[in-house]
């Protein structure tokens, strides 16, 4: 007694949809990280260094091996501020 193929259709849909979301997430993450694998489990050091990369290269994932910083780097450090509450 074979299983009617209609019984397997939902499983095909489920598998296909997981595949769609997985591929979509892969594409979106790669796009957001400029074609590199996304960083994960970043600690404070990594986050600070990524902000420094942003100041040097203009993008969070950009890398540069120059030994001299681009002009204006020494005055481009942003201080994060908040408004006075009281």
């Amino acid at each position, binding site marked *: 007694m074979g299983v009617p193929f209609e019984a397997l259709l939902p499983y095909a849909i489920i598998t296909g949809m997981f595949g769609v979301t997985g591929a979509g997430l892969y594409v979106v993450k790669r796009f957001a990280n400029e074609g590199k694998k996304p960083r994960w489990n970043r600690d404070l050091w990594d986050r600070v*260094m990524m902000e420094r990369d942003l100041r040097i*290269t203009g993008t969070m994932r950009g890398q540069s*091996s120059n*030994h*001299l910083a681009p002009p*204006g*780097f*020494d*005055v481009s450090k942003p201080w*994060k501020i908040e408004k006075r509450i009281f």
Partner: protein
Amino acid sequence: MAQRDPQFNQHVLVDTTPMPDHIPKVEEIGATSAFLSSAAYFIGDRCKAFNDDFMKCKDEANGRGEIECLKEGRKVTRCAASVIKDINTHCLDQFKAHADCLENNNHYLFECRKAEVSLNSCIFDKLGLKKTIPGAPENQVPVHLRPKQKYAQYPGPQY
């Protein structure tokens, strides 16, 4: 140093006033995170004296190290810049390969032993700088020289 990190910060404060003239200028280092962590041990090898000097000055300045240790800080920056410049002129390909590998592997050094070994040998041949991890146990192979890396995605022999 009294410091409170801002909560819910939405603005940044950028001050573009240049350094006053009575303080000598120094070029900042333009290498980014992957290249810096790739070159860290060589910077540490060549510039250990300057680094220690700077940190000692900061330690002994009794809270005024930011202003009083500018001279030592300039030396540290110049030394590190010289190391990065030398690596760029002599071992650029291996340097780039290692940094690319680090960028694609969440800056995990143990994923990139193959690139690291070729970079280290090139730098040792050309510049004479060597990567040593202080405080590692004497009776075992240092972790960056082990061919098998247990935690890499491919844990077998790396090179």
